[in-house]
């Protein structure tokens, strides 16, 4: 379980997170939505141990989150893959050397599932295929938590569909938790169990998707819009 308790994060005078408290239960797929600059990336980085709270606590399975504690967390940034001169296989080997939980067999299986050649050089791949490689390398880790920053953004529908199928196929909600930030809430909603809405560094709402639909009779998009009105 991941917990944030009264977490704030300042960058100089700018407040990126402002008194955030929330709990991410194990075994769920959770969407993180909010406008640009609402704190999504800051929150993901904090849960990954890359950023430390200015005040408050970030806790993973009863331990304060540090880079080391976060070794059971697989974080996928929204930036492009580095190491353009690597082949896909070399990238996987690099991940294998960096992460104890990297599962080479699984990563190769995902690459095969997404029709990515292991011998392809990353610099020669299309943007869509780089997106596929990125998710393959990330899901190749047998991590308890996947933190995915905008895994679908800027990719065409075929690639988005592949990534969604890969997510369902190669994660196991018996023990793994996925937190993913997105702007494509309409498209991503069927993949989610819960939704967290951020606004100006604060949690505006955190609800189960089924509850939104059951209680209000609307989908997550309409519900989100109603929150902002």
């Amino acid at each position, binding site marked *: 379980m991941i917990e944030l308790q009264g977490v704030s994060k300042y960058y100089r005078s700018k407040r990126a997170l402002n008194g955030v408290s929330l709990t991410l239960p194990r*075994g769920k797929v959770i969407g993180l939505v909010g406008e640009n600059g609402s704190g999504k990336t800051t929150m993901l980085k904090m849960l990954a141990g890359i950023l430390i709270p200015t005040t408050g606590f970030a806790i993973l399975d009863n331990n304060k989150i540090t880079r080391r504690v976060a070794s059971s967390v697989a974080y996928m940034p929204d930036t492009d893959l580095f190491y353009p001169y690597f082949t896909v296989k070399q990238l996987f080997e690099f991940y294998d050397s960096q992460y104890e939980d990297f599962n080479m067999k699984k990563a190769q299986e995902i690459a095969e599932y997404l029709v990515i050649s292991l011998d392809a050089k990353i610099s020669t791949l299309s943007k869509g295929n780089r997106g596929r490689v990125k998710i393959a390398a990330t899901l190749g880790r047998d991590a308890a938590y996947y933190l995915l920053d905008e895994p679908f953004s800027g990719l065409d529908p075929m690639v988005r569909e592949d990534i969604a199928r890969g997510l369902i*196929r190669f994660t196991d909600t018996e023990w793994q938790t996925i937190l993913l930030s997105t702007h494509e809430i309409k498209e991503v909603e069927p993949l989610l169990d819960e939704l967290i809405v951020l606004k100006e560094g604060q949690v505006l709402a955190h609800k189960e998707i089924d509850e939104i639909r059951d209680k209000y*009779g609307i989908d997550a998009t309409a519900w989100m819009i109603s929150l902002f009105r």
Partner: protein
Amino acid sequence: MGMEFLPDKPIYQQLVEHIIGDIIRDTLVTGEKLPSVRDYAISVGVNANTMQRVYKELENLGITETRRGQGSFVTENQMRIQELREEMKEQLVQSFIQNVEALGFTTNEMVHYLQRRGEQDD
């Protein structure tokens, strides 16, 4: 991605109804094995937790049976399937009547019309 869902009810409920529809239409027949939770989840584009809930709900409704280590199968209980057909009919008629009344038609008027339509089709 995957199947389209209506906004006004939980996705798992829509999938339960979809599968019931497949059984009534005979796309899925008595005793037939359902795909694994994960395969079905991938094909309709929902997460495995949602699909798990769908399968559990179907089992609770007596529509499927889970055989240990083998998966889920459509019930062989013909009476249950007959019941399902009747329940579906009732639901259809209910929503039909609601629409009819909302537009100010009388049920009688519609019954006569339906009969005429039925004769034309035969």
